[in-house]
């Protein structure tokens, strides 16, 4: 039982990271209808900027975290203005490929600047753990869950109670109608990318914090957040959270139990587990658990 709870806790922490990254995807998709494959690049650059602010510039960790988020927001807005604005109305495939191209450029720029070594973020959480009953809870994991929860609450409040949030939802629903109401669709797009960039930086820092170190591979984790996002449905922030946790817990439990109970599936099966879950769910529900069903007319 202890083992189960321990694994579940780790799964929730992992899932919170996925959820943060998936939230970044969802914000952009909801406002602009673009799946941003470059999200991994934003995560990577955000985390490295955080490293740069704490380690190279010697700033306090939490200040550096905020600065990394601001820088991520600026990066997101600039990318939207320079590249994606030209692609409004283009086929899905073309937009998707633009973001993939961007992913490679961001990744390689980051490795050219900061190199391939494992870096220590110097976060205050380190490898400390707290003991609750029989469970060992990593402080970094607790902070990750906490930060993710705060970010999500802010999200819901933002979309529900602020004029800008409502404008974003309106634009997502019907661009033309929104523009007719005096909402600037361009500004909403830029804002969505900025928010996404900021969330990505937060996700990146939590990924690199604690015992995990900062290495170029973390943009890879964003790919693992795809199943989380798809599972919840592309346009549902609540779905991103649920999908993230489900995928995180499934992955963690698979890592814990599969080597003993289903050895024939091979080593490291937990890495592909999210994709297997995703494919199974999509076969049953093609638009995810909470996604809006697409209505098509001829």
């Amino acid at each position, binding site marked *: 039982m202890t083992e189960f709870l321990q694994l579940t806790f780790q799964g929730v922490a992992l899932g919170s990271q996925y959820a943060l990254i998936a939230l970044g995807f969802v914000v952009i998709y909801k406002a602009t209808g673009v*799946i941003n494959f470059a999200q991994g690049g934003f995560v990577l650059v955000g985390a490295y900027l955080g490293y740069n602010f704490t380690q190279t510039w010697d700033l306090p960790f939490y200040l550096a975290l905020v600065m990394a988020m601001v820088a991520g927001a600026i990066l997101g807005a600039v990318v939207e203005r320079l590249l994606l604005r030209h692609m409004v109305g283009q086929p*899905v*495939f073309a937009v998707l490929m633009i973001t993939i191209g961007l992913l490679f*450029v961001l990744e390689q720029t980051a490795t050219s600047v900061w190199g391939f070594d494992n870096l220590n973020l110097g976060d205050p959480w380190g490898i400390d753990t707290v003991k609750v009953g029989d469970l060992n809870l990593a402080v970094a994991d607790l902070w990750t869950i906490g930060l993710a929860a705060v970010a999500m609450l802010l999200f819901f409040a933002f979309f529900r109670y602020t004029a800008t949030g409502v404008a974003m939802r309106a634009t997502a629903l019907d661009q033309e109608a929104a523009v007719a109401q005096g909402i600037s669709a361009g500004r909403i797009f830029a804002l969505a990318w900025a928010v996404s960039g900021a969330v990505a930086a937060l996700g990146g820092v939590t990924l690199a914090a604690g015992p995990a170190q900062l290495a170029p591979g973390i943009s890879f984790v964003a790919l693992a957040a795809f199943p989380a996002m798809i599972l919840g449905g592309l346009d549902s922030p609540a779905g991103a959270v649920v999908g993230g946790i489900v995928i995180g817990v499934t992955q963690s439990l698979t890592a814990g139990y599969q080597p003993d109970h289903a050895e024939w599936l*091979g*080593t490291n099966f937990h890495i*592909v587990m999210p994709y297997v879950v*995703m494919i199974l769910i999509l076969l049953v529900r093609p638009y995810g658990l909470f996604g809006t069903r697409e209505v098509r007319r001829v």
Partner: protein
Amino acid sequence: MSRARDLHVSYAQQLRLVTSSWAGAGFLALALAWLAAPLVLSEFQLDVGARVAIFALGAIGLNLLTGFTGQVSLGHAFFIGTGAYGAAWAGGDQEWPLWLWLPGITLLGVVLGAVIGPFALRLRGNYLAIVTLGLLFIGEHVFNNWDSVTGGGAGRSVEAETTLAGLDVTSLELFGREFEREQSLFWFTWLIVGLGALLAKNLVRSRPGRAMQAVRDRDLAAEVIGVSLARYKVGAFAISSGYAALAGGLFGVLQRYVSPTEFGGQLGLFLSIQYIAIIIVGGIGTVFGSVLGAFIVGAMPRIIESLSQDRDLPFVFGDAGGSDGFISVFSLNQALFGVLIVAFLLFEPRGLAAIWFRLKAYFRSWPFSY
């Protein structure tokens, strides 16, 4: 009475493969170039040429799927990998002769594509892209763990049989003259590309091709006018994967070694992206564009590699040391692919093929530019 050259008086005339004596001469020139290249070019150039051929073959397949049928796939690398491992197993372990294993792995690709294809019936656009991305990771896992066939994480050598009709395609002996490995493989790979391109061209200019393009342009509308979506979406996946597996088999023969990371996970994604870059750069929805794009994308990394070895690119640090650069060859390549994709999509979304068509249109009515 003399007619304008581009006046079509019958449907068959419009569908003709060789549209004019100029086009005929062009094909002849290409064939002669294919025959002559191995006698003229250096071994390095021929090796790059054979790699370009493999890229071209895989890209023709992807173009049938993405360019003509409009289905986005990030899983092309998985099918390439399947072909490469298939060559290692069927041609190497089982010692099947070339005439058997080469069609065999193609068939394997077709079957696997037909298994994946039904996903395209339920999922569209973005969702399909992500499911095929998942295929890369699941593929990597299988390649890593199915030790008896794939040799596990360390990879395995490919020692496939390469004799066809008494001729070893990796060291040809013709007219009493022995040719090097690079020369022989150049001839063989480009022969397959030629046949593959002909097949693809025939496919897209006939009934199935028109159905595929109808599915691409508006799948619901296509279904309403009587195109079976199940048949053409799954069919496109099957054919495209067949091309990919064939290309993978040739890749195995050329490379003589395969490892799981090449075709799965992040490098697998990069390989898939390379193929997508080829069709974007070359021209989406054209067969010859796939070959044009393969020249750029296939040759670029090798040229950068060889330039950096000679230290001609001062900002690159090569394998040989030289620490004054700031970017590695690998990073430069990946970044350049990114830039290439973004730039073409923004400025020339129909690729190099569009430039060619514009040139042709200009000269067709030359000197009247209207």
